[in-house]
């Protein structure tokens, strides 16, 4: 296999695909990337047992061939080289990489292999990339990040609704859902549970792109789902297990609600949160007193002292104090798109909801921290 390419052209594809080549559920050897050359097309593949990311770029090809290279090392090497031409030249055991006066000879890692994926149905559905990515931004962070407790909570539920699709995620402390109207990605009534990690990568890919009218091609089988964006194809295993019956958790009504500036509230939470030095200590809450004057935030810690800030807002309901994990609260505030957000409350032990004022397409349910 032999080809020549520009460093920047190759580096983007290497970084994108190497994000799937993690040590998670390692395939045996060091995480690897596969490089395959057919004519002037170089296919790069990074994989772990749950996720495969493929990217194709145009290069100046000389000899066709295929090789597995250690993912981290190859990214570091290419990143370290100066902008300009890079030549790859090697057989099935070793790859020579030269650029300017630098020359590397990289061996195929012991035990390296990549995940094979069964073919998927060819008919797919087209999603508007930017809208889908915005929905992901609002929802993905509510999913559980480690799967020790409940693997199905590490996924985002994508469900067909009457008028579009709904994305739902929860880590059991908060629950976010987003309705994308007018998008029919699934057969009526069907739903798939997609690992949040894969969707995080999709969101990253789309956000990095400047193309306004980009589309995503989405296909799925019973076991896998494929997203194709530009020259990148991402395949993920679907999660098994039942997603919780989240609709049961949505309170039918709320006796209290406040309309408040998203930016002012977000800035205030960030400020008072400074008193919580240990970011792992999720149990030091921000206590918010909701009253006619607005929302008064307080953080009290035995070690560092206290912080308080009043944020004005329009409140309807009885005076109540509810405590929240400041990080969870902030993620909910940041997920809302509009300048004014509405927080609906029941009491200090029941879920509160954050959403854009006058818009129910996105909701972020958050359970309080019990402090009394």
């Amino acid at each position, binding site marked *: 296999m032999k080809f020549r390419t520009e460093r920047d052209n190759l580096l983007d594809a290497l970084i994108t695909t190497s994000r799937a080549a993690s040590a998670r559920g390692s395939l045996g050897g060091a995480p690897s990337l596969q490089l395959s050359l057919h004519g002037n097309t170089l296919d790069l593949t990074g994989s772990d047992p749950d996720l495969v990311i493929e990217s194709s770029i145009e290069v100046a090809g000389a000899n066709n061939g295929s090789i597995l290279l250690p993912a981290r090392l190859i990214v570091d090497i290419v990143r370290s080289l100066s902008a300009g031409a890079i030549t790859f030249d090697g057989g099935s055991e070793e790859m020579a990489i030269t650029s300017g006066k630098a020359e590397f000879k990289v061996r195929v890692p012991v035990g390296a292999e990549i995940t094979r994926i069964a073919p998927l149905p060819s008919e797919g559905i087209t999603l508007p990339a930017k809208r889908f990515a915005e929905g992901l931004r609002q929802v993905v962070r509510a999913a559980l990040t480690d799967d020790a407790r409940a693997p199905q909570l590490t996924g985002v539920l994508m469900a067909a609704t009457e008028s579009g699709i709904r994305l739902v995620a929860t880590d059991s402390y908060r629950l976010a859902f987003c309705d994308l109207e007018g998008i029919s990605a699934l057969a009526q009534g069907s739903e798939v549970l997609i690992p949040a990690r894969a969707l995080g990568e999709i969101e990253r890919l789309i956000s990095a792109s400047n193309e306004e009218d980009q589309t995503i091609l989405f296909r799925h089988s019973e076991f896998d789902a494929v997203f194709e964006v530009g020259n990148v194809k991402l395949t993920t295993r679907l999660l098994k297990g039942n997603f919780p019956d989240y609709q049961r958790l949505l309170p039918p009504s709320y006796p209290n609600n406040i309309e408040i500036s998203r930016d002012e509230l977000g800035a205030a939470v960030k400020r008072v949160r400074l008193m919580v030095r240990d970011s792992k200590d999720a149990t030091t809450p921000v206590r918010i007193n909701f009253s006619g004057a607005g929302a008064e935030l307080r953080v009290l810690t035995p070690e560092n002292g*206290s912080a308080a800030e009043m944020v004005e807002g329009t409140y309807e309901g009885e005076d109540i104090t509810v405590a929240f994990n400041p990080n969870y609260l902030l993620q909910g505030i940041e997920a809302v798109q509009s300048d004014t957000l509405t927080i609906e409350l029941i009491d200090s032990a029941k879920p509160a909801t954050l959403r854009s004022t006058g818009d129910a397409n996105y909701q972020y*349910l958050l359970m309080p*921290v*019990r402090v009394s």
Partner: protein
Amino acid sequence: MAKDEGKLDVLHLDMDCFFVAVEVKDDPSLAGLPVAVGGNTDRGVVASASYEARAFGVHAAMSTAVAKRQCADLVIISPHFERYTQMNRELLRIIEQVTPDYEPIAFDEAFIDVAGAHRLFGTSEEIARRLHAQVHDELGLSCSVGVARNKLLAKLGSKAAKPTVQMSQGPPRRALVMPGEGVTVIDTDREYQFLHSHGLRALPGIGPKTAERMRALGLNTIADAVEVGRARLIAHFGASLGSQIDDLVHGIDHRRVHRSREARSIGTETTFDRDIFDPDHLRSQIFQFSQRVIARASAQGLVARTVSLKVRYSDLTLISRANTPDAPPRSGEEVARLALGLLDHISIERGIRLLGVHLSNFVGAETAPGEQLSLFDGGEADQEETPQTRRLDAARMEIARRFGEGALDHASLVAPQRAISRNDIERPH
């Protein structure tokens, strides 16, 4: 001593063989005999020994079987903790008349900060003599008091003030108890000489293992350790132990006297009139104690992060198990759940004589961490239950406040057997 006024503000008051002394007070026929308080079984352990018994080599923590071999005439008495607790309360009452700034250590010891008591009660030495006399006159017991600049020296001082004992040149061999000074004042200009009159092992913090390691380095006396210097002590023993040893041999101790009202622990415990093997009985007690300790903590606006369970077996061995959950318990039920979880890890086959539930590691209720509630925890039904439990606790506390404890209780809490004593304890460590 006038030049030291305002410097020697720490007193260490230590009762003289407290458990035995209380027994002798209650039964004067024991006076002058070798007496030990402890478990009178094969597995029993000596908790306290009279000076007459100590002359034969009997000491606390020795098994009673060994103690009997050392001293054939040894009189072994089963402990009466309720009496010791009662006398301890009397002792604290006497100290409290002088100052609220004291730190009880166990049943029989306390550090006292007299900095604020000079105007009313005179010099530190005068206060020490007053306490010594009051303990004698009002409790009929003797104590020893050390007066010094810090806790370390005060503690060595109270030890120096203790009675001593010798064996007569028999036969018959008899123990001769020499009364001690009662009060020892360690003036600052005597500190050096006083400290160096002790062996290394006399310093609290230098145990047999450390002493052995020091001996291996040729450090046999306090003077040796002073001479070798802090840097080398740290090089040999690590930063923590090395600097601790260096402080000790220089008589340095920065620990302050914690006022008793800054309770570090709130607990309730009971001594049963017989050994308890029945787990249901223990559970019911734990449930009851949990209600009580949470009520007392919340009355002081405190939230405890740690729940501990204390158990004394019939052979007097004492064990304590603690749990510090992420979210501190806020109701009696939650304390009970944690304490019952600890009980599961304790063997009760040996029979339990004393049981206690303690809260510690306090933070103000306002600053205590909370518990992140889950959307799924048992669904809506459970979300209702928690505040209700808490409202029930609040109602129970209110009733207890108005009508006294025990006025209202869970039906399941009516214990099948009454405990002979029940001690509510607040203690700093």
